[in-house]
């Protein structure tokens, strides 16, 4: 079912990671991505992966969920791996007719798989441990310097939070509409590409109709409560940075240093 997609989902909890300031979590995630992309060798990826494992352990998020977050990207990984393994130049290990497999190709492919998997699994942790509201508040706070340049930071973050808020609703709605059409004998599992594309019509039309009417209702409700943008608005939950946040940031920086060092030394 659609409900089983976990990317972008929030799993409430009370771990150290859950309690951290979302702004710091975003910065640390950026540092983590930097770790993965500054590494040039497989060993260089190790500090990043180690850092991710540490975070997962701290977050008390079940290991199963991490594997689940990787499921949707398996096709992408397979496809790019196949391309890389057969088409990269280097020391040839095996040759059958046209097809050859090189040592460098294998190394590069393994590295790429590790990098993509760690990227997805690691950054999923950000949404697993932060509520959508705290995330958008954090984005607004981090981007607030741009306000000086007249960039509509508040509007952007409001749009983001509305979008995030309605993802589960839309998924639920899609599920409901799909069930209702299946109950009328809609066949979505068999047939060729064209047939399947056609089978989407009875789902997409009701979905759009309801999304539009929902948007209208929401706009109306916001206007009724005199919403007029970010000017003078206060927050229900104010973000506070604590000691633990700075410690987390320091640890992430150390791991990034380690990555750079490992690459320099090897």
């Amino acid at each position, binding site marked *: 079912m659609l*409900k*089983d997609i976990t990317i972008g989902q929030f*799993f409430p909890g009370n771990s150290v990671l859950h309690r951290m300031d979302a702004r710091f979590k975003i910065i640390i995630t950026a540092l983590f991505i930097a770790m993965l992309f500054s590494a040039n060798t497989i060993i260089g990826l190790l500090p990043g992966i180690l850092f991710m494992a540490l975070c997962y352990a701290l977050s008390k998020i*079940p290991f*199963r*969920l991490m594997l689940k977050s990787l499921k949707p990207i398996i096709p992408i990984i397979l496809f790019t791996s196949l391309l890389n393994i057969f088409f990269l130049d280097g020391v040839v290990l095996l040759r059958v007719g046209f097809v050859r497999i090189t040592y460098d190709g294998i190394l590069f492919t393994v590295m790429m798989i590790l990098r993509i998997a760690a990227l997805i699994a690691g950054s999923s942790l950000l949404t697993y441990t932060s509520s959508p509201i705290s995330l958008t508040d954090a984005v607004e706070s981090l981007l607030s310097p741009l306000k000086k340049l007249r960039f509509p930071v508040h509007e952007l973050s409001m749009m983001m939070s509305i979008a995030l808020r309605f993802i589960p609703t839309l998924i639920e*709605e899609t599920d*409901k*509409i799909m*069930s*209702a*059409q*299946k*109950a*009328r*004998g*809609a*066949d979505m599992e068999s047939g060729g590409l064209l047939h399947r594309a056609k089978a989407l*019509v*009875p*789902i997409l*039309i*009701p979905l759009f*109709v*309801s999304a539009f009417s929902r948007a209208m209702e929401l706009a109306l409700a916001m206007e009724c409560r005199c919403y007029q943008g970010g000017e003078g608005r206060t927050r229900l939950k104010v973000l506070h940075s604590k000691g633990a946040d700075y410690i987390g940031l320091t640890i992430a920086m150390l791991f990034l240093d380690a990555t750079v060092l490992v690459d320099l030394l090897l």
Partner: protein
Amino acid sequence: MSIVQTENLTYTYSLGTPFEKTAVKDVNIAIDEGELCGIIGHTGSGKSTLIQHLNGLVKPTSGSVFIDGQNIWDKGVKIRDIRFKVGLVFQYPEYQIFEDTVFKDIAFGPKNMGLSEDEVSRRVKDSAEIVGLRPETLGKSPFELSGGQKRRVAIAGVMAMEPKVLILDEPVAGLDPKGREKILAQIKRYRDEKNATVLLISHSMEDVARFTTKILVMENGGVFCYDTPPKVFGRAAELASMGLSVPQITRVINRLKSAGIDIPGDIYTVEYAVKKINEYLARK
């Protein structure tokens, strides 16, 4: 023989995640052909989850579902055939409408069954007539209709498949009293004309009391009882303890009885109450 039957039916949502929730627990029911069965229960008691098992939209976590004696999850059973046999009308079914004319939308189900043009057309007109849609409405866009009319189109869309078992999830929720009355009567008419079995979820004890032959009471994912309306509404205290009530007229009668007036206690429709009270007054 029972047309709808379940054996130790259990279903858990989001199995294996922190959001695990067992919505249906060890349900055993057997509903006979021709019954007009009301399903009542507190919000969250698992009514909607249970009925989605009966046409194979949801696969049980454990246990089995039998339609006409056939286990619907046996190998070789085409689940689509089950869905044509057991028609399911969801709650607020008007959101499923997608075609540009009422006719085409009602025809969606019968067309999926692979029927001939003529047969599809006959069924569309037939079911439109049952739910009280005028012939000229068939050519209109369903999106122009009122809420109540849309509801009728959606119900007709399932009736047009002429299922042997018709299941409706709160079909009159959010309609005005007159509209409710009409739709319930139309559902009853469908059952009488097509010799079908009907299952109907409702929150209105009055509707259930007047229209059904049997009542299934759900509590916390399990079956509390399955019996005739007088027997079920005879257990007023137990129903009240699970947040349900008995029809208002039954409450009136119970008060009269406890005030010492000698009338039978199994009264649950206004018509029957009037008759019994008149009898009592004549005796006096």
